[in-house]
């Protein structure tokens, strides 16, 4: 168990170090988020829909697309120079590799998502005073499960043709429950509704996380068989 966690940490650290050294993916992801927000602004009739009213929907749609795009990168980098083969040749458990990739993906996605939330505040005037912490916690809760699904799917699609097309195709249906719950919770938080109204949605998000994290851990080794 301790060995698994140690290997997972090494894998995660390696991924994050690659990211920190180049920063290309990170900067591109945040720019993509900003661009999606910009496009959204023109997709609304300013006279009919206020930007504040649109903020929760904009936030979650942007998070969904940026999340999928970011996850694509996770195994695409491993494919170059046959790095994945090297990783799989190492005498470590596949579950540890999954945990490491998952952790790195989650950290990366969460950092990008936090910045996206701030960009929504900036561009769509959402008033987050007092609710910023709660909204970031919801984003985390909504991401933990879909990043697990995304890590599994990215490992598969990286080895297919049209990887960049295949991952969104497979992953977006899995984003529907977190996005529905996320929008519901965010809308209520922004409207200052009592916690009792969002408790059910948060429970669904938590359950989704537990179920898909466990499932990812179980099925990932069978993807890496040769």
């Amino acid at each position: 168990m301790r060995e698994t966690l140690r290997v997972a940490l090494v894998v995660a650290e390696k991924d994050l170090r690659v990211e920190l050294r180049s920063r290309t993916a990170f900067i591109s992801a945040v720019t993509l988020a900003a661009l999606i927000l910009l496009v959204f602004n023109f997709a609304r009739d300013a006279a009919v829909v206020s930007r504040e009213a649109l903020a929760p929907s904009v936030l979650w749609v942007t998070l969904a697309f940026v999340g999928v795009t970011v996850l694509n990168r996770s195994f695409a980098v491993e494919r170059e120079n046959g790095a994945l083969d090297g990783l799989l040749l190492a005498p470590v458990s596949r579950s540890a590799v999954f945990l490491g990739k998952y952790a790195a993906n989650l950290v990366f996605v969460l950092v990008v998502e936090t910045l996206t939330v701030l960009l929504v505040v900036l561009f769509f005037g959402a008033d987050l005073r007092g609710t910023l912490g709660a909204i970031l916690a919801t984003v985390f809760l909504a991401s933990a499960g879909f990043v697990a699904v995304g890590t599994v799917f990215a490992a598969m699609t990286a080895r297919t043709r049209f990887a960049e097309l295949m991952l969104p195709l497979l992953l977006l249906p899995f984003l529907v429950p977190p996005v529905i719950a996320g929008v519901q919770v965010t809308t209520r938080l922004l409207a200052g509704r009592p916690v009792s109204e969002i408790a059910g949605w948060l429970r669904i998000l938590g359950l989704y996380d537990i179920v898909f994290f466990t499932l990812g851990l179980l099925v990932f080794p069978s993807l890496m068989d040769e």
Partner: protein
Amino acid sequence: MSTLAASPAQRAIRRGLVLTGIGLAALAGVYLLALQFTPIERFQGLPQKIFYVHVPAAWSALLAFSLVGIASALYLWLRDPRLDWFAESSAEAGLVFSVVMLTTGPLWGKPIWGTYWTWDARLTFTLLLFFLFLGYRALRGAMHEPGDRARYSAVVGIMGLVLVPFVHLTVYLFNTLHPKPIVLKPDSPSLPWEMLRTLLVSLGAFTVLLFGFVTARYGLARRSAEQGEEVGRGD
């Protein structure tokens, strides 16, 4: 391939075609029964007849998708290629029935609801399921190595099976929180006997058709695997 005349694949194809033939004959019977021997519904009129095709198609699609999930889970456990061929065949048959469901639905919805599409929970749910299996099919099409393809698609099949309750729960909660005008539902429990009879016959016909399609497609998948070539390879 006369040398393969008695192979299991060939037998499956033949059995599938026979079942499909029976299913198609039964379907013709359903049309006759629905149009000639079932009363016209008082409020909806003729469009209600779509019900006898739409509901059984939905039933077959959902049944097929459940079979994909179960076969996928069994495949990862037993690693028997027959389970993979079966999952592939069920997914494709399920897609065919989904298309029937998703085209007959709007055709009925336009005259009765006044719109081809609404984001009703049940509609959203089935549409998402359709996309899920379209993704499953696309993934299979993008892969060549049979072993990898079987394992990868089995993982998607299992994940999809687990996703279903979550989608179901969230779209229904979403829907109840945003009430819609009362919709006319054809499947009220007080269905007159003649209508129920036609529906049951149609359910039977569609189930036979599903198994006919799956069996024939299974035979094709098996034959192409045995010949070491790919069937339905993407571009």
